[in-house]
């Protein structure tokens, strides 16, 4: 096995410090939500189709319910679901069952209905905390669907007003929140794009930890922290650094959610095998930051459109959009192979793995499909399979012409 050190990039001293500061911010934001006694209402939400600009503007404390990776927590969810739900869904329920302080703190949970499994999870969470389900249209390009989603967004606004006892969020307040979240998306995208370099300054795991902050830390605190990371990471390496040594195998991780705390595959790929996840097509990675919400006109319509226009989950239609988005990411980040990671029982990505694999193969990319859960029992098997896959990619590289330097950050900023 190749040593990890061959592919390590000496980080600029500021980067580890900036990442540590962000980590501290995440923990302090979670702690603040749990401990807050100001009377502010506390809201949890389940999916990144939730227009959180409204939560920002409504003045509630909020967090995404996407902790995962813990076997015991997933098992606790089985009291309600039996074993045939994905471990992520079981973990969402399990956290309530176990009395996780963050999850217990919420006054209300909102679930924008994406997959049926999450809808069911929301129905169970209702047994612990008041829960509201809202519709997310599937036909992302249809005008009627967009109009309907705007109505759901308005209904969300009204529900938040009832929860907080305040007047419904105004158009101006929402517009300001949209601008604020867009700024964060731009920063996160810029940070992600640094990974287009031949020697990426950030690992996939580091990016996953940066991205999770978006769902916990209030925008005003998050923005300077992201700016600091962008500056620090941008100063690390650079295009010329690739010449100094071997570059890591570049991988796309596509598929189901890789939840906050589910770092098993990232650890195996990057820390044990020295390859790099340079881009993710999943809803906890870079995907949600690839598009912005329109900043002009009716902000409620803009919000509805913006969330339907975002890089799509596979449940959205046309389904081809999800395939094409994934393939374009692979191209733009010049990946050499794809890890298609889907949670066991995840219908959105498990049932159609063949179509994703065929699309990647058509682009000349080898794919390793991994059916994953939160148990540790198959770690050895995973390690063996991923190691063999990476070895194949290394062999392939030996016999391939030298790759062109991937586009640097910003040169194709608006292509996806």
């Amino acid at each position: 096995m190749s040593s990890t050190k061959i592919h390590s990039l000496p980080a600029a001293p500021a980067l580890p410090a900036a990442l540590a500061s962000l980590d501290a911010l995440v923990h302090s934001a979670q702690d603040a939500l749990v401990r807050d006694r100001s009377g502010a209402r506390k809201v949890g939400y389940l999916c990144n189709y939730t227009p959180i600009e409204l939560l920002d503007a409504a003045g509630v404390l909020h967090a995404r319910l996407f902790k995962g990776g813990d076997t015991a927590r997933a098992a606790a969810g089985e009291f309600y679901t039996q074993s045939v739900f994905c471990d992520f869904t079981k973990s969402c329920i399990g956290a309530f069952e176990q009395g996780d302080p963050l999850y217990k703190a919420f006054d209300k949970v909102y679930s924008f209905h994406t997959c049926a499994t999450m809808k069911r999870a929301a129905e169970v969470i209702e047994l612990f905390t008041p829960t509201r389900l809202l519709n997310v249209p599937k036909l992302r390009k249809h005008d009627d669907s967009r109009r309907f989603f705007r109505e759901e967004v308005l209904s969300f606004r009204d529900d938040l007003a009832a929860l907080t006892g305040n007047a419904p969020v105004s158009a101006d307040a929402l517009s300001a929140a949209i601008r604020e979240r867009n700024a964060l998306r731009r920063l996160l995208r810029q940070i992600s794009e640094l990974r287009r370099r031949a020697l990426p300054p950030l690992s996939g795991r580091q990016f996953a930890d940066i991205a999770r902050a978006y769902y916990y830390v209030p925008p005003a605190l998050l923005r300077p922290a992201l700016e600091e990371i962008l500056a620090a990471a941008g100063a690390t390496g650079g295009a010329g650094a690739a010449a100094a040594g071997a570059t890591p195998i570049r991988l796309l991780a596509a598929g189901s959610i890789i939840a906050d705390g589910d770092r098993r595959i990232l650890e195996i790929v990057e820390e044990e095998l020295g390859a790099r996840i340079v881009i993710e097509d999943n809803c906890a990675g870079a995907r949600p930051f690839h598009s912005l919400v329109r900043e002009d006109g009716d902000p409620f319509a803009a919000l509805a459109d913006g969330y339907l226009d975002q890089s799509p989950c596979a449940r959205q239609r046309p389904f081809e959009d999800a395939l094409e988005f994934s393939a374009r990411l692979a191209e733009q980040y010049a990946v050499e192979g794809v890890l298609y990671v889907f949670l066991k029982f995840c219908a959105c990505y498990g049932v159609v793995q063949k179509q994703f694999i065929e699309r990647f193969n058509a682009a000349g990319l080898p794919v390793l499909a991994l059916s994953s859960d939160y148990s540790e029992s198959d770690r050895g098997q995973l390690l063996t399979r991923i190691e063999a896959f990476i070895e194949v990619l290394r062999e392939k590289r030996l016999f391939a012409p030298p790759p062109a330097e991937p586009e640097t950050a910003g040169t194709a900023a608006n292509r996806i």
Partner: protein
Amino acid sequence: MSSTFTETEKLRATAGISAAHTAAEQQPDLYNARDEHPFSPTVVELGDLARNWSLETIERLVREDGRRAVWGGFAWDSPLFRATDTIPVSIMELWRKDSHLAEHIAESDYQIPAEFCSMIKTMAGRWHLLKAEQSPIKRILAFSSGCEPIGMVIEHARAQGYEVHTLEGATAFRVGERSDAAVKLLAGEIAKAAEWLQGAPLDDDRLAAEIHLKNEALRKVARILELRLKRPHLVGSLPAMWLLGGTGGFFGNQKKFFEILDRLIAELEAAVQVPDNRPYLPLILAGGPPGGLSFFKLLEQNNAVLVGFVLLGTALYREDVPPREALAHYLFESQLRGELGEATGASALLRRRGIEALIEKTGAKGLISSAVTACPYASLVQQLERNYFRQQGVPIVALEHTVHNDPITEEQTMKIKAFLEQLTGEAR
């Protein structure tokens, strides 16, 4: 003798699945089953009508008579299909034949992981087989509120060349929540679907007439189920399911179906004049029948009668609103009752309300909660109902089954028998 093999036969041989072997091991599907103790020739006629309305019959109508047929449209949307002269083809047809082979194809050719339910795998594989056999039914009407596994399998069908039209989905999540926007959305989607189905705008008067007709059928079936409570041994549990299933498309013969309903009502009205004091166990079935025909036989042997069904109900469509909206209201109300299953986004948490109402109405002594193995949603419903009804003191047994027409397993048999014995003991 011809030496040509059909595509299905070739695939069956490749997969090592023998048709004869499969047929010998399987039992007739629900519509091919026969009521062994029909109370009248009318029940026999009902069985014949159900049996003859199959995929093969519909394919023949398409080929020979130029009729239009589309996969879907068998439940809340059946009036739309009739109003557009389109024959609805129930997805249940996809596992009436070659279901094991279909499941094998789904896992091998489509790489659908084994952990998914037999229903979706059978759908993927059978659509593949039907394509290979050049079935003339090449269109699918999909509904976005259904579960994701079904939605994703439909994408496989689309990739195979099926023409798919998707209705935007909306779900009613809570009783009393405002639904104006959702009703408006769905009414628009219904109009678009009609255009796709027939290539012409929807005739609202025609749709209203079809809704009225379906309501008539539902009223008649409700009347039969009500009369059955007084003479439960006359129309068995299996024919009762045929009656409910028939309201979806009248088994392709509305006149005959209505005649049968009218005759059954008349026969039962006469029969109930004579009281029947034989003991029996009234039960509710929530979900599909676990173990198919053998399940019904087991019930009969143990004097148990299904008096309430949760999957397909007899609720009526509204006729006081424009017909497109009536379909939308019907769908949303069904979701809130937990009816029509995962294919239409029924509520898991609220299904128990419908069950409680049925228990009150029918005097049922127990609940059989049934789910397709590996269906996450149905398993959750079962778990919630098990927790809830045990607290309420309502006996419940949770059973799992596949969609294959395999006989009931020994384990299931023991479980059902133990449940029935427990109930019989309590009744004494």
